[in-house]
């Protein structure tokens, strides 16, 4: 038995010696690398290769008509800086993130509090409320398209009851209503995601601490910010990060509801990249945009993660 050496880097069992070390055979020594090899190969093929390839193509000048693979430097990046449609799509994406994310968080938290204490049939409620989350986003979009139909959809009908007269809102066409329409669909689908995670996190908060704080005369808000929030923060941070990343790539719901229209008014980065790449076949230009998005994303994620660690 040889603990230590090339294969001795096993993790010791809790409280026990690292018996899981056996440096006898050569096959043993490379075992851990063979185990990660296939997964790494697949991830490299689909994760790293496209990014590098994107970078290379972005410095060439490929279009549908032209297969120009000579080096053009940063030509497309310079064009991107002056492309108002690109910056607008970035702005639209940003709007969806900063409106939908807090809304989902607040509604999700409110729902989590609603179901936190004992409630008969809670399991059934939770099981039903999760259904939007596991619906395909494109199907969710299609469903809301049926709901928002100006004539045969139920939403204008319901609004009409309150207004006392027929409401003829063109939800997916009228520039004043496309944002609310997309946001409603998006918030409907993902609030239950926040709800589920926050409910689990709230259930794990130490009740005795809350009771002690309340005995000391702390109000709901004070108890929440001092005791509950720090306790649920790790889960909340993950939930917010996952949703922020998902909203940043928002595509399906918009594709189903407006396809970026009217005009380009609801075009997100994903929609614009799709139009450029697969409808206008601007290969190199799309690649430059894709690479720029990767850089923007990498920088923001690094900053956010650092920020969250400081706050914790």
């Amino acid at each position: 038995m040889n603990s230590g050496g090339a294969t001795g880097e096993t993790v010791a069992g809790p409280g026990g010696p690292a018996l899981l070390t056996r440096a006898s055979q050569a096959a043993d020594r490379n075992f851990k690398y063979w185990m990660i090899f296939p997964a790494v190969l697949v991830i490299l093929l689909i994760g790293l290769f496209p990014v590098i390839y994107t970078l290379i193509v972005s410095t060439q000048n490929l279009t549908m008509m032209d297969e120009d693979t000579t080096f053009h430097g940063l030509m497309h990046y310079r064009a991107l800086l002056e492309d108002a449609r690109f910056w607008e799509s970035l702005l639209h994406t940003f709007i969806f993130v900063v409106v939908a994310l807090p809304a989902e968080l607040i509604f999700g938290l409110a729902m989590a509090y609603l179901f936190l204490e004992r409630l008969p049939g809670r399991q059934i409620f939770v099981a039903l409320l999760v259904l939007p989350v596991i619906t395909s986003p494109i199907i969710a979009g299609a469903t809301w398209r049926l709901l928002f139909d100006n004539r045969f959809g139920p939403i204008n009908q319901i609004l009409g009851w309150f207004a006392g007269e027929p409401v003829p809102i063109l939800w997916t066409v009228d520039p004043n209503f496309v944002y609310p329409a997309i946001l409603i669909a998006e918030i409907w689908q993902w609030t239950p995601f926040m709800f589920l995670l926050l409910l689990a996190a709230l259930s794990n908060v130490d009740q005795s601490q809350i009771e002690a704080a309340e005995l000391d005369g702390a109000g709901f808000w004070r108890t929440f910010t001092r005791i509950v929030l720090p306790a649920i923060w790790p889960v909340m941070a993950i939930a917010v990060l996952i949703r922020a990343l998902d909203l940043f790539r928002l595509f399906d719901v918009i594709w189903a509801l407006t396809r970026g229209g009217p005009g380009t008014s609801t075009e997100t980065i994903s929609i614009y990249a799709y139009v450029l790449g697969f409808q206008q076949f601007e290969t190199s230009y799309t690649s430059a945009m894709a690479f720029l998005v990767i850089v923007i994303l990498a920088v923001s994620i690094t900053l956010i993660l650092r920020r969250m660690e400081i706050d914790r």
Partner: protein
Amino acid sequence: MRADKGLGLTLRYVTAIAVTVVFLFPIYWLAMISFKTPEEIFAFPPVWWPESIQFANYAVLFKDGDVDTIWNSMVIATVSTVCAMFLGTMCAYSIARFRTGGNFFADWVLSNRMIPPIVIVFPIFLLYVQLGWVDTYVGLIVLYTAFNLPYVIWMMRGYIQDIPLELEESALVDGCSRWQVFMKVVWPMARGGLFATAVFTFVFAWNEFIFALVLTRSDVTTFPVQVTHYFGGQSNFWAKIAAMSMLGTVPIFIAVALLQRFLVRGISLGAVKG
């Protein structure tokens, strides 16, 4: 005090029902449209529940062969889930027990999950044209496997770390090879985690739209892409949209309902230990 508490419970109960109704209404509406006759779908004011439950809208999908897209989704989601689970659990075992690659490797794996599909779909498309993988099962299976791997590795690492080491150690002492330990000890022990993780891997592949939109033409069209084929200019084929959506959504609802207890850990990347 007691009356006050009873009132609070009633109020919460009413609120809970109201919230649930609001969140379920879109799904209810979709289901009802799928059972309506064309006259009921295009009635004004809208019909809130159909006169009778009739399956003509579904029958059309079966007759025209549109349900083949459900089969395509089934093949692609199942095979890619099996691949991702197997390769991912191998990798997770290596990370969990040998700290292969250290923190850097674990973080790098997870960072791959953060890449927006739209950023890589274009080079993937060009690669697939070269490989002849556009509109083939293998193309989407490889893609979904790769896209799910970071998730599987991350989740399974957590589950494997929770398995006590003693069993693996005694199997080694008994003369098992490392591979046998993995297959005969770790794999069965991690079963609960495998199911939980596989559900979400499957749901991702089943629901995915943008890759499927770009990388399929007609042979392996998945059901979400098929639904968007019914959107068209002025006349939407509402009945088909609704019936096809129901066919693709109900199996997922049932699967997740059966695996309810794994749900929270699964969708939170293991942030909440269940």
